């Protein structure tokens, strides 16, 4: 090979590398786990995903201050809350202390006739007034009398008390004026960020701000024992990002080191090692560049998965280098075997690429482009780069030893069908569930983090955001009006015990129409005075003491309705803001439903749906817009199941395509059988072993099975070439190819990211089995008639 041609090829490669590196360098990387959520066109599902990504639940930090006396933790809680409230990054900070107490009471009292759900024409008739006055007298006799007394002359019908009762929400117990865990001394605090849950940098900054506020609030003089515990989706997301970042780089580094060491052992030459890495590096860069161009962003997991590509792409170089370095001529069928192998692997990756998972789709594209590039580089560039008279260490002794081993293993060939059938029998007869049905299974959040989250949520009696009724409307007024007509339905569900409670933005901010109706139902001053005199007759509360009431009702009649803007500076503003969502599809009201008090029970979805349907038929006929009951957990799990089914379908299709492809190219059912037998045996045995080890399968295991077929078919194809007996150096190259593959995927098996771990623990043993089974069946299939 001429020097000119070599340097030409080298320059070409450098140019290509430069272009790919330039694209890769401009890539944005992400670790957002929601790429494993659907890209669904359905409005309900889209809202669900939006909620998971950016909803109030995703912006909530749960904070616990523990390890000291309750007086200490309460003091730190107050100090932290003050610091965080001053921080513009937080929309709401709540530690149980009433900050907006005065503003809330002032607003409620001033607008009590517009806000109180009890206000209607009947309430201000003689009978209604009499009942209200009697209630007030009873209230004065109660322990709450002390609180009610100052307002009686201005509000004898008790609208303020009715409002306060309606708004009073159960929270954790108060100790030292702040929320404290039941019977413990953990001070509790909730912080809601302004930034969405998918803005990870903002979430990380918020987490830092919380930690800093804690450190600053610690008493300086004493060595405090107080600890800070923070949980919530933001913490999970930030931790996931850290985990993925560190794992991906760790796995990539370790995988690369193992493969480099392996190559050095085989070739004992740095220059050959570098040549072997040429297709790998080019392939990996091409993969990143293509994903970057195709998707705009590259997920960290795609890069982690890329490690496995190193293990696979290096195979082709290995085959070529061992082939060229050992024999003077390359067998005629060598490249066709490689291409066939690439074709079958490619089928697997096309299936991933075609999936609706942006995450899997990325993996598919990355692998597909990476592998094709690696093969093309190996086929057309690498030979040109090889020095004249290229020779590697003599692998013949090793190859011959392997050949003897393969021959000997044929004695155990019956083991393959026996193991396969035993696995099949086990898979068919096992009773425990095989699939993990929860979306959470994909999350890299650690068990400890989950437990901490559950504990803090329990202590905080944190808003249960699992169940929501979603109402769509054209604007805020419209959606509030819809929410109002729904409230009797929800009240009925609560009375029937189907739900333990519900909330609605209309509870804090009734629609303008409703407010106006209430204000218009107030009688004129003279008329009210006449009715009041009649109503108070015989009651201990004399009408002539209630002149302030007459004045205030008269003033309320001409009052302007309360607007969202007027709520500013009160805790009502936050409640309304949290439950109203303005999107491109209109305004949504999110009405949280809570589960029966035990916390174990689930909301009866069919009862809620029936009630919603009946409501839509009766009251909501002319109204446009969605009214959906959303169980976020069930919905996201069913979403995940939908995916699982999709992947199952895609896997089946791609395996069928691989089979079809092989049968077309091989044109012999017997050859087909020889190729399919070891692969199906490996898949069955791995599957049975995973389940036997107590693994609940996630869809990435399924992807792993597909990869066993894709990668393993390379080996079986080599064992089934019909150009004479296998040369010793082919055995050696198969062994090294498998070792690099196992090194790549094996590293993933030790990852704590479930998505990577599942693939690793499936593919690494699967490809070993595919090679071993192919070897064991080798002689036997040859001699069969």
């Amino acid at each position, binding site marked *: 090979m001429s020097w000119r041609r070599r340097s030409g090829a080298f320059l070409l490669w450098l140019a290509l590398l430069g272009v790919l590196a330039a694209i890769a360098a401009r890539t944005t990387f992400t670790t957002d786990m929601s790429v494993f959520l659907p890209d669904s066109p359905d409005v309900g599902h889209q809202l669900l995903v939006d909620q998971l990504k950016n909803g109030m639940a995703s912006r909530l930090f749960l904070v616990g201050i523990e390890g000291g006396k309750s007086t200490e933790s309460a003091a730190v809680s107050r100090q932290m809350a003050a610091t965080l409230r001053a921080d513009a990054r937080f929309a709401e900070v709540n530690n149980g202390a009433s900050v907006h107490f005065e503003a809330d009471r002032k607003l409620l009292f001033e607008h009590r006739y517009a806000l109180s759900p009890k206000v209607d024409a009947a309430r201000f008739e003689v009978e209604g007034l009499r009942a209200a006055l009697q209630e007030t007298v009873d209230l004065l*006799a109660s322990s709450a009398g002390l609180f009610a007394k100052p307002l009686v002359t201005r509000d004898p019908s008790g609208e303020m008390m009715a409002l306060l009762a309606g708004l009073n929400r159960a929270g954790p117990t108060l100790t030292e004026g702040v929320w404290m865990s039941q019977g413990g001394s953990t001070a509790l605090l909730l912080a809601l960020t302004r930034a969405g849950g998918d803005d990870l940098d903002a979430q990380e900054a918020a987490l830092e701000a919380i930690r800093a506020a804690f450190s600053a609030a610690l008493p300086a003089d004493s060595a405090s024992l107080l600890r800070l515990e923070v949980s919530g989706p933001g913490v999970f997301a930030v931790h996931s990002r850290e985990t993925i970042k560190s794992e991906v780089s760790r796995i990539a580094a370790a995988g690369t080191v193992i493969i480099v060491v392996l190559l050095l052992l085989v070739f004992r030459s740095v220059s050959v090692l570098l040549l072997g890495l040429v297709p790998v590096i080019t392939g990996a860069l091409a993969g990143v560049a293509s994903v970057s161009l195709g998707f705009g962003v590259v997920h960290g997991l795609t890069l982690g998965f890329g490690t496995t590509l190193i293990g696979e792409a290096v195979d082709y170089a290995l085959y070529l280098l061992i082939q060229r370095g050992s024999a003077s001529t390359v067998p005629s069928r060598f490249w066709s075997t490689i291409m066939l192998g690439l074709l079958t692997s490619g089928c697997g990756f096309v299936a991933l690429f075609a999936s609706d998972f942006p995450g899997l789709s990325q993996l598919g594209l990355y692998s597909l482009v990476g592998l094709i590039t690696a093969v093309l580089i190996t086929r057309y560039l690498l030979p040109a780069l090889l020095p004249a008279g290229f020779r590697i260490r003599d692998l013949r002794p090793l190859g011959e030893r392997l050949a003897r081993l393969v021959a000997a293993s044929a004695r155990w060939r019956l083991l393959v069908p026996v193991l396969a059938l035993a696995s099949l029998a086990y898979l068919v007869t096992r009773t425990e569930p095989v699939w993990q049905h929860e979306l959470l299974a994909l999350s890299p959040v650690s068990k400890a983090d989950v437990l901490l989250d559950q504990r803090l949520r329990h202590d905080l009696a944190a808003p249960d955001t699992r169940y929501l009724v979603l109402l769509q409307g054209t604007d805020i007024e419209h959606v509030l009006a819809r929410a109002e007509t729904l409230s009797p339905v929800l009240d009925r569900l609560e009375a029937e015990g189907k739900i333990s409670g519900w909330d609605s933005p209309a509870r804090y901010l009734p629609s303008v129409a409703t407010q106006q109706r209430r204000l218009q139902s107030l009688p004129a001053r003279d008329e009210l005075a006449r009715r009041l005199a009649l109503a108070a007759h015989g009651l201990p509360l004399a009408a002539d003491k209630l002149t302030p009431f007459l004045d205030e009702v008269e003033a309320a009649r001409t009052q302007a309705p309360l607007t969202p803007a007027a709520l500013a500076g009160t805790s009502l503003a936050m409640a309304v803001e949290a439950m109203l969502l303005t999107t491109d599809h209109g305004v949504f009201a999110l009405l949280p439903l809570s589960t029966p008090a035990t916390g174990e029970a689930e909301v009866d979805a069919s009862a809620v749906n029936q009630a919603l349907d009946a409501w839509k038929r009766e009251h909501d006929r002319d109204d446009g817009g969605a009214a959906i009951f959303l169980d976020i957990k069930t919905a996201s799990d069913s979403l995940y199941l939908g995916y699982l089914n999709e992947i199952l379908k895609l896997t089946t299709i791609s395996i069928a395509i691989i089979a079809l492809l092989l049968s077309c190219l091989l044109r012999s059912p017997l050859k087909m059988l020889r190729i399919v037998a070891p692969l199906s045996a490996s898949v069955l045995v791995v599957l049975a072993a995973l389940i036997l080890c107590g693994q609940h399968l996630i869809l990435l295991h399924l992807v792993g099975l597909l990869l066993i077929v894709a990668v393993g078919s390379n080996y079986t194809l080599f064992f089934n070439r019909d150009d004479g007996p296998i040369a010793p150096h082919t055995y050696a190259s198969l062994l090294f190819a498998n070792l690099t593959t196992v090194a790549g995927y094996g590293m993933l098996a030790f990852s704590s990211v479930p998505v990577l771990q599942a693939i690793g623990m499936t593919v690494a043993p699967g490809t070993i089995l595919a090679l071993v089974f192919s070897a064991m069946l080798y002689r036997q299939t040859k001699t069969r008639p």
Partner: protein
Amino acid sequence: MRAFVSFCFACLALFVVPAHAAGWDIDQLMQRLAANGAGRVHFTETRHLVLLDQPLVISGELVYVPPNRLERHSQTPVVETMIFDGSQLILTREGKTHTLSVRDYPAAGALIGAIRATLAGERHTLERDYALSLSGARAQWKLSLLPSDPALAQIVLRIQVSGSDGRIERIDILQADGDRSELRIDAPAPDTAAK
């Protein structure tokens, strides 16, 4: 069972008069009150409100669990429960529960806190908000609490607690707006004491 027995003893201790005590001052009264254990007694309260033409009469049961918990279970005219645990008031009425932080209602807190501190015999706590004076003898005494804090004096003019030895028989509260209430505590029947 052991817990039940010790509870019975504690209840008895609340209402038994020791014979050997001599002399009578605030410290002794406080010691006697502090020595009382948990108890459950029947009460009748009469409230005279300026706003109302007739007094309100409320009756029910008081439960005290030292040192911090005071429960008031009204039976007439309305069934309701109030639980005070030192930092918050939990009111249960018509199936609904309301929790109020004492921090938000300091005056009400000081008023109920005074009753609790008297029951617990916490002279130090009482003297933070009130000036104390004791009259009468051990067999029939009267403790007056006059608010020393001006903000509190806007709400309450005087609290008078009277009783016999370690037992509180009556609490009179006079409020600044002219409202007053008298709370009579019945001597516990032996069976209710052991409940």
